[in-house]
């Protein structure tokens, strides 16, 4: 049987592809090329004087030890946010999956934080951990820990990781829960009859069957940690103290939008773009092999 679709007219496949191509062009290729173009220019904020500087913006970046530090902060931050939000979401999803009474209520409550804007989430955690008026700071002080994210880089990084991960847990939870409910109960029951305990059932049956969901969420969460967290950081620590919470995308924002240094900001976006392309390639070539659909 012929499985391939055969088009009678040569133009039809192109026509069908057109909307997708147009969207890619307008929302990806065009801005990306603008960033590439800006990254070789030096321009005053008003755009009155522009000069071509070649790769100087890039050279300047990689000579800057603080930019290189920012890579390290980004790696620690993204790994922590991804691990924390996915781990907790999976735990909550497994627990919610077993609840019978009042399940809808629990689910609604767990999904709620996703509706909160990043900046609002940031302000929320800023209050909870405020060195002077924060409730958790007060609790920590009783336990003998003097929390001060305005001064201590480790505290600040912990704060933005918690705030960013908290926001993403709901999203992950939704997908994990849907994934869990799609697993046939008969498989698990059969394993139970064979004498497998809950932990063994989870690791040998449930978790492998969840792998497509897990892989999808891994990609989404890494992208989230890289790009969507600057609102949280802006509202809580503004990248400080020192540059302890300045992740790459926050540096793009602060140099471009606050410092009005468009050339450097564009160069940083280009670097970021290549990092994400590389990450995606790695994920799809190496991590996806372990996924069973």
């Amino acid at each position: 049987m012929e499985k391939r679709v055969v088009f009678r007219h040569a133009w039809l496949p192109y026509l069908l592809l057109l909307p997708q191509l147009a969207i890619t062009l307008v929302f990806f290729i065009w801005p990306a090329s603008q960033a590439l173009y800006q990254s070789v220019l030096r321009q005053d904020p008003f755009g009155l004087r522009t000069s071509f500087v070649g790769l100087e913006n890039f050279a300047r970046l990689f000579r800057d030890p603080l930019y290189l530090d920012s890579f390290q902060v980004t790696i620690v931050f993204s790994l922590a946010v991804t691990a924390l939000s996915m781990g907790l979401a999976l735990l909550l999803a497994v627990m919610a999956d077993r609840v019978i009474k009042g399940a809808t209520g629990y689910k609604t409550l767990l999904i709620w934080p996703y509706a909160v804007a990043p900046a609002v989430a940031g302000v929320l955690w800023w209050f909870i951990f405020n060195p002077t008026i924060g409730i958790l700071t007060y609790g920590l002080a009783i336990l003998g820990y003097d929390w001060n994210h305005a001064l201590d880089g480790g505290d600040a990084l912990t704060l933005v990781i918690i705030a960013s991960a908290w926001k993403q847990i709901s999203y992950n939870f939704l997908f994990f829960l849907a994934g869990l409910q799609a697993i046939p109960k008969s498989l698990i029951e059969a394993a139970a009859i064979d004498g497998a305990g809950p932990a063994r059932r989870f690791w040998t049956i449930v978790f492998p069957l969840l792998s497509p969901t897990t892989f999808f969420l891994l990609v989404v969460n890494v992208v989230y940690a890289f790009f969507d967290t600057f609102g949280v950081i802006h509202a809580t620590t503004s990248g400080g103290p020192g540059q302890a919470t300045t992740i790459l995308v926050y540096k793009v924002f602060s140099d471009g939008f606050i410092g009005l240094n468009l050339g450097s900001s564009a160069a940083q976006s280009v670097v970021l773009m290549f990092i994400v392309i590389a990450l995606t390639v790695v994920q799809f070539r190496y991590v996806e092999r372990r996924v069973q659909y």
Partner: protein
Amino acid sequence: MSHHSKLLAGAAAVALLAGAGVAQAQTEVQWWHAMGGALGEKTNAIAEGFNASQSEFKVTAVYRGNYTETMTAAIAAFRAGEQPHIVQVFEVGTATMMAAEGAIYPVYELMADAGVDWNPDDYLDSVVGYYTTPDGDMLSMPFNSSTPVMYYNKEVFEAAGLDPESPPTTWPELEEAARTIISSGAATCGFTTGWQSWVQLENFGAWHNVPFATESNGFEGLGTELAFNSDLHVAHIGAMQAWSEEGVFKYGGRRSDSAPLFYTRECAMYMNSSAAYAGVTANAEFEFGVAKLPYWPDASGAPQNTIIGGATLWVLRGRDAEEYEGVAAFFNYLAKPEVQAQWHQDTGYLPITNSAWELSREQGFYEENPGTDTSIEQMTLNDPTQNSKGLRLGSFVQIRDIINEELERIWAGDVTAQEGLDTAVRRGNELLRQFEADNS
């Protein structure tokens, strides 16, 4: 389309036409500002006051976020050809705006072109010095200027056995008072500060008559280099570092994030803008006093005078001539003593003209609100020198961030005061050289 929705559409069209009719009768002037909350209401009231005073022009005041966001939004709008007529820009953006010849319409030119009779000499020297060309021509319209002062908790002073009516005037006195307060248990921290670069380095330089940067703090050219790693600066920041370890000084954040430390009585003293007066009044449930900033008595030039912060109104080019007449008329209204005095008394910002200051005195405002004249006394204590006129540095928004980062490293004890300030100077100078290359 049902009958009902047809009716609605018709009504909408009529409303639109009516709206267009009003817009045609009055020339509209867009004013973007960064005054939120209570300050925003006062700002809008000024625009409304102007609109009510005449019928030819209509000023629309639009809140565009904080200072940085407002400036960025205006610049982006300019690049898109959609700029407002007037935009409020904070003092650190001054050099960026000045460098944008062709994009800005200098106020002295605007007033001359519109033929408006006004008196630029009425403005306080220490305010306009910031915003004039070397020849004394005013580039932007002074609006909200403030200077840092020291708030202190009178109740804590009393509980510690100190005289609540004589706050410390020098840093050694302040240290002694702080130690007495802490050891007596009246409060757990001596003092905190808002806007650390502005208060503890920029104003510190002016107050002690030492340069913050070369070339008269940038007023004489783009070749300026930072100089806030002088012996006096290092000694001061070094002392603060030691105090930070002991709890005499507590760091609370980059902008005004440290305010709760004062409001909750944790810190007995708090240095921040004179415009924080309204906030302190609203939040401090104790008696407080306003005092001048302390100085180091062994520094020969101290106390000199402090410099301003806050913002001015810049006019952007590219609109119709008759609209600029509206801008000039509005500025003329804004300069009126009554308008200025009201604004000053409502907000804690400085009275920026001599006549507004006099009017406030005549009205008895300072007697009723003791401490509100501290800022102006401090600013006008001496004639400004080249170290105390102000600062005009390119990329200053970013330089302040660098200073914040390095100061945080110092407070945390990661580097010494000398190392931290040297690094900040080196990093800041790189930005200044880039700004020089971009603008020459």
